[in-house]
């Protein structure tokens, strides 16, 4: 039985997730990448309102390909972008109430700390499986900040069963990326003399 989480995500949902768990998301997923994060920061600094409520939300680091139709928008493909670029916004994203961050490559120490503080998880989407991931999206509900360009805009997606997603950073400070990196460093130390 596939495990499907429904948005808005609760603290219990997040607490129940362990490293290596495979999950799907049902409900609302926002996309946001570099420019959207920057725009959120600017608006918060100027005490302006945000167009969506991030409380309990899932944010997908992605720039989708979308087609305009008579009735609205049609999603082409959507895949994850490298999440570490959004690392400088870790604290801001945590404070906004975002519960799940979806992307590729994981995040660093700042996010790991924020995940513990605000109860968040990181979900790795399979990179390069843009068509499969798009299949789990039922419809595009809205778009904000389209002037940032199609990939950089904030898209509001309605998911029927978006995934599969793997829990790679949990809310207890666990991260599978950490282990991989420290192992690689040990290998390098064994192979070469330190400078």
């Amino acid at each position, binding site marked *: 039985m596939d495990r499907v989480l429904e948005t808005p995500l609760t603290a219990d949902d997040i607490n129940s997730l362990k490293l290596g768990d495979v999950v799907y998301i049902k409900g609302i997923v926002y996309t946001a*990448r*570099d*420019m959207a*994060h*920057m725009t959120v920061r600017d608006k918060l600094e100027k005490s302006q309102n945000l167009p969506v409520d991030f409380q309990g939300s899932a944010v997908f680091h992605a*720039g989708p390909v979308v087609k305009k139709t008579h009735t609205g928008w049609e999603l082409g493909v959507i895949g994850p*972008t*490298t999440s*570490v*670029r*959004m*690392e*400088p*916004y870790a604290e801001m994203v945590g404070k906004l109430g975002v519960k799940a961050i979806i992307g590729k490559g994981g995040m660093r120490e700042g996010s790991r700390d924020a995940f513990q503080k605000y109860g968040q998880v990181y979900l790795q989407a399979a990179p390069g499986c843009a068509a499969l991931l798009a299949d789990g999206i039922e419809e595009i509900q809205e778009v904000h900040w389209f002037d940032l*360009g199609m*990939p*950089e805009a904030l898209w509001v997606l309605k998911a029927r069963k978006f995934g599969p997603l793997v829990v790679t950073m949990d809310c207890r400070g666990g991260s599978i990326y950490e282990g991989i990196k420290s192992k690689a460093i040990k290998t390098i130390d064994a192979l070469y003399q330190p400078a």
Partner: protein
Amino acid sequence: MTAIDSLYVSNIQERVIRLGKATRELDVSEVTKAVRQMCISANYNVPEGSILALKKALETEESSVGKEVLARILENHKIAREECLAACQDTGVAMVFIEVGQNVKLIGGELYDAINEGVRQGYIDGYLRKSVVTDPLFERVNTGDNTPAFIYTDIVPGSDVKITVAAKGGGAENMSGLRMLTPAAGVEGIKKFVVEQVAEAGPNPCPPIVVGVGIGGTFDRVALLAKKALTRSVGSHNAHPMYAKLEAELLEEINKLGIGPQGFGGRTTALGVNIEFAPCHIASLPVAVNLNCHVGPHESVIL
């Protein structure tokens, strides 16, 4: 010959004739002559913009040892110019940037052979040091004539051929750096990287230095932008006002580091900061820093 073949051939012939009318012929021996001359001249004559900046620095430098160094450097550049000597013994590798107008037909030989011949003649006839080895890792044998040149070619509109020769020394080149920043890093991130790079280089690139900065493009393009920025004269500014402002701010901040002439301490760490930029991917913010010492030989000619 089939009908289609003959149609094809006649089309080609017609196009050749049409292009031929607008084509200007240039014998590549002219390129050899120009490259030879510029290799020599650039190494003897420190660019005017750098001399002006050094004179200005001599007035403003607060460190007494720094002042003395600047005075000696100016004396050196004068001797080099008057007595036809290389201002610096590291006469570098020959960087050759060539912009070929698309209406130009090059005749009389191969362009790259002609450029290398110019470098060979220039470095031998000008008593310049030969600093190129055949193979970077296993066979580090000096090629003996400073070839091959490091050539970048652009095809541009028009009927001109513009050639820029820059002699790039190793000491400053080794202090270069490149980082693939992310968009969130912004202006602050760029500034921090550039200033850190200069601080890290310290006395090694023979300050006062000229700082070439590339912003944008891709991994490979950004390094070339930084290098091309160094072929712009000291004291010139980027045409884009925001980038010109960034150049001025970076220069001011670099000169707060206290490294000073030759790294002996002082206010004059850099004579100028030149930035070149290019469009880039939405996920990227590449930045590259390429340094020149106060000599920074470069010259251009239009044939």
